[in-house]
């Protein structure tokens, strides 16, 4: 047996990317979309105990798809960085931009340096003070950072979800309408009914902590 002593960088990156994409494709997707009073985060999640969506700071939320232990590590690191910044400087100095670049750095380094890349994709959402301009960032397994407008999807079905969102999302949705759009988008992308929702909002009208988990039964009952 011969031992390959040289692997072309292109080959190495391609193999790692393919591995990571396969891992992510096995998990379920999450989407984030603006509504009139903030940002709605919605994911299909049959478990009511294990969360994929979480509060990071006053106006910032995190969502992750892929391997649970890996995005959980990132989530905790994000909360640590945010709380540390806010404690050492001021609560106003913690921004989604700062966190998104930190996630991008971390994932980028892991992708290149470690034998196995993280099989995750994360989403960082932030509502602005007056509720008008929200920020949505998406960071992929290799640390690529995307700045999205109005809506975003992460996970295996993200392309189909984004395409459907492009058709259905419109400015000034109410929260209920935003949920209906999200549910319809999932239905189109997955071709079936959801097995349970995990949902949360960054509600710009709340202060100082805007993150709130919602009970999906309030929305699906009607």
């Amino acid at each position, binding site marked *: 047996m011969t031992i390959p002593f040289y692997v072309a960088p292109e080959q190495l990156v391609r193999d790692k990317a393919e591995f990571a994409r396969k891992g992510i494709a096995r998990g379920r997707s999450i989407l984030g979309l603006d509504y009139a009073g903030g940002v709605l985060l919605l994911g299909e999640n049959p478990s009511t105990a294990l969360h994929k969506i979480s509060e990071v700071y006053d106006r910032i939320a995190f969502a992750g798809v892929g391997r649970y232990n890996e995005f959980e590590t990132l989530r905790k690191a994000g909360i*640590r960085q945010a*709380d*540390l910044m*806010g*404690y050492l400087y001021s609560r106003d100095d913690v921004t989604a931009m700062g966190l998104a670049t930190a996630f991008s750095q971390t994932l980028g380094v892991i992708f290149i340096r470690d034998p196995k890349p993280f099989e995750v994709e994360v989403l960082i959402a932030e509502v602005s003070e007056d509720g008008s301009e929200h920020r949505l960032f998406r960071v992929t397994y290799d640390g690529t950072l995307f700045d999205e407008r109005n809506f975003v999807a992460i996970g295996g079905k993200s392309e189909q979800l984004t395409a459907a969102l492009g058709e259905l999302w419109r400015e000034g949705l109410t929260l209920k309408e935003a949920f209906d759009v999200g549910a319809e988008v999932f239905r189109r992308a997955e071709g079936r009914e959801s097995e349970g929702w995990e949902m949360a909002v960054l509600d710009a009208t709340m202060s100082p902590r805007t993150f709130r988990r919602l009970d999906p039964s309030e929305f699906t009952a009607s």
Partner: protein
Amino acid sequence: MNAPAPGASFTDLLHSLGARPTWVAQPGDKAPSAPEGTTVLALRYNNGVVMAGDRRATEGNLVAHRRIRKVYPTDRYSAVAIAGTAGVAIEMVKLFQVELEHYEKIEGVRLSLEGKASFLARLVRGQLPLAIQGLGVVPLFAGFDEREGRGRLYSYDVVGGRYEETDFGSTGSGARLAKSYLRTTYREDLTAEDAADLAVKALVAASQDDTATGGPDLLRGIFPNVVHIDSDGVRELGDDVVGPLAEQAVESIL
């Protein structure tokens, strides 16, 4: 982002980074003079706790600050009131606030009230070397126990001893006066409004004989900080509510 994982505690995270607030004073050093917060108190009412503090900080015989805040909401269901060296105490409260929020976000659930009270004791204990130098901090802690469905309050001593109080507690220079006022007027099953009224009266009573306790300053419009903590969470009373209470209290006690 690659700091060693310190679990769910923000204080331990700071410690692992060498960023925990510390004041180093050698034994035998002459303690510096720093502003001190004076009288705070808390009392239980039928379904919660009311907490109040005067607004004065003193340095020796001088008034260092007229509008200092000594009562701080620390999360949705709890609040801390501080007495002792103001700078150290305010930093301690800030750390405590971040600690509670950090734990809640990392673990996905809030600490139990007992857990919060016990963590605060740890922070007080950590300041013991400073306390020996005369720069001690003695807080009061109150909250609504979500599991038991009732308001509870704890007083502390300078070494971090923690004592749950059944009716009321007070700390700071005017504490003895405030407590003797409360001892004669406190009754069980107070309403939230009556409890706020009583809290303000007790502070006014303390300010009559303790120069370090600031009474309501009707000319400048400086009134005590008062918070209610019950099943709806922590609510701070505005000056529009506390102002009239303070005026009545001054009239009734004079």
